[in-house]
C-alpha cells in the first residue's frame, strides 16, 4: 500500500518539507519540473527516510543543467518510467 509523491515546485515552496510530515515509510518521492532542483541538494534530501526511494525526472533535470549534479540518493528516470512507477504504487499524491 505505498504511495508515489510527485513534487513539482522549487525548494523555496517547502513542498518536500510539507510532504515529509505526512509521508509513510516505504513511499517514494519523484521530483519533476522545478521540483528537480531538490534533487541536487543532498543536504535537503537527508531528511528523507532511508526506506523511501527518491527519483528525479531526467528530462526536467537536463533542461535545467542539473542532471550531472544529482545527489547519489536520486535515481534518474524518464517519463516512461514515471508511468511505470505509478503502476508500482497504489496511488499518486501530487504536490504542486
Amino acid at each position, binding site marked *: 500500500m505505498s*504511495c508515489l509523491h510527485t513534487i513539482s515546485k522549487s525548494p523555496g515552496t517547502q513542498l518536500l518539507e510539507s510532504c515529509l*510530515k505526512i509521508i509513510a515509510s516505504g513511499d517514494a518521492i519523484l521530483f519533476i519540473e522545478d521540483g528537480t532542483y531538490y534533487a541536487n541538494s543532498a543536504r535537503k534530501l537527508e531528511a528523507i527516510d532511508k526506506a523511501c526511494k527518491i527519483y528525479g525526472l531526467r528530462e526536467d533535470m537536463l533542461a535545467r543543467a542539473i542532471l550531472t549534479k544529482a545527489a547519489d540518493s536520486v535515481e534518474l528516470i524518464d517519463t516512461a518510467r514515471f508511468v511505470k512507477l505509478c503502476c508500482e504504487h497504489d496511488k*499518486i499524491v501530487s504536490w504542486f
Partner: protein
Amino acid sequence: MTENSKPQKSRITFISRAAPYGQNKANLCLDMALASAVFEQDVNYIFFGDGVYQILKGQDGSAIESKTLGNALETLELYGIEKIYADRQSLEERDISESELLSGMQIVDSDSITKIIESSDTVFNL
C-alpha cells in the same frame, strides 16, 4: 456517472493546502469534495499547511467583492462530509488557536493524516 449502473463507493481524500482568496485552489478543492459527496463517495477533508487559514472564523469576502470561503466550507457538513480534519502542527506553526476556528474541525496529528492517506483510494492535494 453514466457508465456504472450500480454506484460504487471510493474513499477520496482531499488535502486542502492553499490559503483562501489569494488564489482559487481552496475553491477548486472544495468543489471537488462537494461533487464527491453528491455522488455518495466516502470523503475525507484535511486542512494542512496554509490551508488552515481557510478555517479562521469571521471571514468577510465582501470586503474584496468575493464570496466568503468560510461560509462555503460550512456546506461540507450539509453535503454529508463529516470527516473534516485540521493538522495540529500547521495550526501551531501559524499561531492559530482552536478557539479561532470554525466549528466541526477535528484537530489531528500528522500521523493520523498519514494513516488517512494510506487508507484512501484517491488523494487530491492542492
